[in-house]
């Protein structure tokens, strides 16, 4: 659970040998106001799309580095699991997309006042990207601009 042993041997070897990019120095942005006054967004690498969106392109070597916007008022039964990896059990996120894209939970927290505002849109990336350089250079600036334009204060990032 939560360790390499859950993976088939080919993924274990890959994960051990993979040249993970090290963040150095580690940036640090403390909250500038109480969480109950902050605007939050979800960023997930669970690869969810909606029916009206183009699927992620499985033919791109190193992984599709685009992202999809997911509107905050979406009902989870409209989220489609488009994650390409066969390295994990998809049955949980197909049964309940909140498991990796907890939009219902975040709306509940907004309603309770635990967070200030839930942003009106969120970001869905494809995970298991083995060539993240293109994503960082080509895609992330647009994703960042979107969040900055919306005056997002904080983000919860959820993998799958």
């Amino acid at each position, binding site marked *: 659970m*939560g360790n390499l042993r859950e993976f088939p041997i080919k993924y274990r070897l890959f994960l051990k040998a993979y040249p993970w990019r090290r963040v150095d120095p580690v940036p640090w942005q403390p909250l500038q106001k109480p969480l109950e006054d902050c605007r939050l967004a979800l960023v997930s690498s669970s690869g969810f799309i909606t029916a009206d969106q183009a699927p992620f392109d499985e033919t791109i070597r190193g992984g599709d580095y685009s992202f999809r916007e997911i509107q905050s008022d979406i009902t989870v039964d409209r989220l489609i699991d488009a994650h390409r990896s066969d390295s*994990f059990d998809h049955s949980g996120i197909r049964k309940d997309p909140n498991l990796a894209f907890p939009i219902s939970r975040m709306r509940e927290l907004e309603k309770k006042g635990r967070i200030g505002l839930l942003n009106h849109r969120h970001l869905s990336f494809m995970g298991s990207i083995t060539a993240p350089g293109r994503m960082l250079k080509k895609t992330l600036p647009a994703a960042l601009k979107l969040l900055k334009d919306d005056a997002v204060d*904080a983000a919860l990032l959820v993998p799958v």
Partner: protein
Amino acid sequence: MGLVAAELERNGISTVTIQLLRMVAEKVRPPRALVVPFRHGYPLAAPDDPAKQHAVIEAALKMLEDTNLQPPAIVDFVPYKDK
């Protein structure tokens, strides 16, 4: 996700990242990582279990609020055991 988190943080957005493998958090070093003891595909514990999902999210939000944390902050999530 760790690289995305770092870029957001560099641009003034506070982040907390759910992490399934501690090894990855230690190598990549996102600013704030909550390491969960769940298998891949189950980052928020269990489907159709809002209480368990909220427990993970609440632990992540507390990391955002914790002024004593230093970067990179890697915290283990310890779930309550079912009775």
